[in-house]
């Protein structure tokens, strides 16, 4: 009894602080359970508590009247480079799988706020594509104003970026003066780098297995040297790290999928995958997802056969497909790209909404938390002035885990104060600098 009371005493203040919000009279695009006209979403703390036509507000609830507006889940971008301090490429080796984006994250990249203003709430932040195996990625939510430690989605799977084609073979950039071109220089070499990395990892795992076996038998055993890269490669083989592979041409896509089957690993998501439509069947068979630009093309040779019909063709072949940005700009209007999936190839409205929400969540293996409006999921929600698949619509309010991280009216109201504050700070800085200069004079 005492224990229970104590527990209650601890729980009560938390419970009391839990904010309750009701968004009502909106058209709710649940993504997984159709459209609810004149619907409501009840948010309790960080979670969606209820969704439907007849959800009433508890006495203490903050009520947001969204008459004429649309609510959809936060958009999820499976290809971002925002919030990374310095370069996204550790270019020094063909395989830099030991390095982690997590160690270079910052929370002061304005892109995060701008993305919130476009309805994007979560992202996979990846390394660049300078090497065949680039480094470990990080799944975040754009909790602007919060410490980076809170951006990281705690139960998100570990992920790693692979890259195929022109970039890892250094076709689009030259090495700095005085430096030699780095291996590999062909798609053959890219395959070899990945094959050798996994071959080495198998040997590494075998060495450790041997050591553990000897120890168990109480034989004298010297532990193998720990190798952070090999640990990473081994964890991929153990299924503990998901691969997101930058790819363009159909031949390299098939190469990676075949290599995966042969070496015993899985490809979670093919990134860009601009020629995915040529080998959609092979992608579906492997079970890989596909995250693509809807209409970027022609910016390099391997993007010359890109077509905006890619999404429709991959979906039709059973590939779990999403649209993603690889761009701080595009990340602000992935709803446009979803609408283009309808335009190019006649994807249904439901599927169009899925390609920027639940399909991306599935690719990140976070669909138990995000990607749709369902009771029990994270309250990552966006209120739009109109249907999000319309180019005339605009984001009004963006929630992450029940908290408002963007609100247009607040943004507008704060502008004048921000401008004044900046002016004052710049003036103070200039004054201080002038003062220091004066004092320094003998």
């Amino acid at each position, binding site marked *: 009894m005492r224990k229970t009371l104590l527990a209650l005493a601890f729980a009560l203040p938390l419970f009391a602080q839990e904010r309750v919000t009701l968004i009502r009279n909106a058209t709710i695009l649940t993504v997984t359970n159709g459209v609810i006209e004149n619907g409501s979403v009840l948010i309790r703390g960080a979670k969606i508590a209820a969704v439907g036509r007849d959800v009433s507000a508890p006495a203490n609830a903050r009520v947001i009247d969204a008459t004429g507006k649309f609510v959809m889940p936060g958009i999820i971008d499976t290809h971002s480079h925002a919030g990374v301090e310095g370069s996204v490429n550790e270019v020094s080796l063909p395989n830099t799988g030991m390095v982690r984006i997590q160690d270079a994250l910052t929370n002061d990249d304005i892109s995060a706020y*701008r993305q919130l203003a476009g309805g994007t709430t979560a992202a996979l932040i990846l390394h660049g594509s300078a090497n065949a195996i680039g480094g470990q990625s990080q799944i975040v939510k754009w909790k602007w104003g919060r410490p980076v430690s809170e951006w990281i989605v705690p139960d998100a799977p570990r992920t790693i970026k692979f890259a195929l084609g022109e970039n890892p073979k250094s076709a689009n950039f030259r090495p700095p003066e005085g430096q030699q071109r780095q291996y590999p220089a062909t798609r053959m070499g890219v395959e070899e780098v990945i094959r050798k990395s996994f071959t080495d990892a198998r040997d590494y795992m075998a060495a450790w297995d041997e050591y553990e076996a000897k120890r168990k038998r109480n034989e004298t055993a010297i532990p193998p040297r720990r190798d952070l890269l090999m640990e990473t490669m081994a964890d991929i083989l153990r299924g503990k790290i998901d691969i997101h592979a930058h790819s363009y041409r159909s031949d390299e896509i098939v190469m990676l999928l075949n290599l995966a089957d042969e070496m015993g690993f899985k490809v979670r998501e093919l990134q860009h995958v601009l020629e995915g439509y040529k080998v959609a069947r092979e992608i579906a068979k492997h079970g890989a997802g596909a995250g693509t630009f809807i209409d970027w093309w022609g910016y390099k040779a391997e993007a010359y056969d890109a077509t905006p*019909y890619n999404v429709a063709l991959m979906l*039709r072949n059973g590939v779990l497909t999403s649209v993603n940005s690889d761009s701080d700009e595009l990340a602000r209007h992935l709803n446009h790209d979803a609408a283009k999936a309808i335009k190019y190839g006649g994807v249904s409205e439901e599927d169009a909404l899925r390609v920027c929400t639940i399909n991306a969540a599935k690719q990140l293996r976070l669909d138990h938390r995000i990607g749709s409006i369902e009771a029990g999921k994270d309250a990552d929600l966006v209120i739009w*002035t109109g249907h999000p698949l319309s*180019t005339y619509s*605009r984001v009004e309010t963006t929630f992450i885990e029940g908290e408002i991280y963007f609100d247009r009216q607040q943004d507008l109201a704060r502008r004048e104060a921000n401008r004044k504050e*900046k002016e004052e700070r710049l003036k103070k800085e200039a004054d201080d600098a002038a003062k220091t200069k004066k004092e320094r004079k003998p």
Partner: protein
Amino acid sequence: MTCHPERSEGPRATSAGGASPSARLSMTVLAALLVASSAFAQSTILNSTGRKGTFAIRNATIVPVTSAPIANGTIVFANGVITAVAANATVPADATVIDGTGLFVYPGMIDSGSNVGLVEVDSVAGTVDTSELGDFNPNSQAAVAINPHSELVPVTRVNGVTHLVATPEGGIISGQSALIQLAGWTPPEMVVKGPTAVHIRFPRLRSAPISDQPQDEEAEKELRKSYTRDVDKLRDILRDAQAYGKAAAARRASQSVERFDRDLILEALVPVVEGRVPVVMHANLARDIRAALAFADEFKLKVILSGAQDVGRLLDDVKRRGIPVILGPILSLPQREDDPYDLLFTNAKTLHDAGVPFAIQTSDAHNTRNLPYHAASCAAFGLPKDEALKAVTLYPARIWGVADRLGSLEVGKSASLILTDGDPLEIRTNVRQVFIGGEEIPMDSRHTLLYEKFRRRP
């Protein structure tokens, strides 16, 4: 009429004479299938049909842009020119009649700044003709380097962008742009007006990315030096052009004036300093815009401002001079991290409210087809929808001096128009048929052909 084979509800054509349209339809479907199964080293899409027949689109909602939309209207065009736009226009006996029930007719859209025709694959230098070497290339002409057989041409036009200002880049004086139509077998067949303007990337005091932090003193000094040097050089070359123009006029007037060798660079600048050809000043930051406009005043240049992200801070300067502004790309990021997130979306409304003429550009090539969505994004942030449409039709036609031919659906104007199933500024709207200068444009592109090829993969 070429038509998407999969779409069952293509524009239904009936004929008031001539070949059976249904036969034409099925023939072109067959052609599309044949094309789809052929090799793809070169597309086999027609640049244009070369046929400027008589057409009538009936029962459509016609949006002339210069006047109110006409429900159940008829538009007739022959020999490339619109001959009637009305609720009950008479359909000539020889017209190919298109039933536009449930559909809409708009003028073709005009991108006020694009690289279509000047680039094929960005990373393959051999296919890129946007930026000449050196700082002063007023004699570089986009018009002579347009590739009529670029895959970008059909990709762009099938989404309703029928015209664009092909714009050179790079250096300080980048060259001469040309207003082209996206149909034709040779560059001269495509050029509607050239040159449209000489483009100046006015020297910038700061290099991107900008920051409000005070810079390293030495670096700042260097930057100022090179900035001043560039502006001086620009001033020198324009003064030389003024002198050259006077000398040339004197020589024309009297053979007693000594002959002098021609200078193509200065010759290209003479119409600019004489105010006969406009200068497009590319500048984004307030300081750069101010400097560019002051510079233009000095030479009494006829100016069009381009980019102009900070134009809201300089409305009076722009308005007082009566300068039109080319905004865009709209779908791009503000330059300062503390700029309002919607700065580029709201500039069009700001200009509209101030009565400053404006048009929109994509500054893109491969996705110049997205021009209407750049315009729509302005409407999402307060610009009236009909103004957004004008910013990619009538207004560019006026700014570029072709409003006698383009930009609206009026009798006597070019039959450059699009048949759609909705508002072209909405992504979900499909463009069913494009006419450029009265020619029925094949609705295929590299992208539709790849789609047709691979959706049939056995």
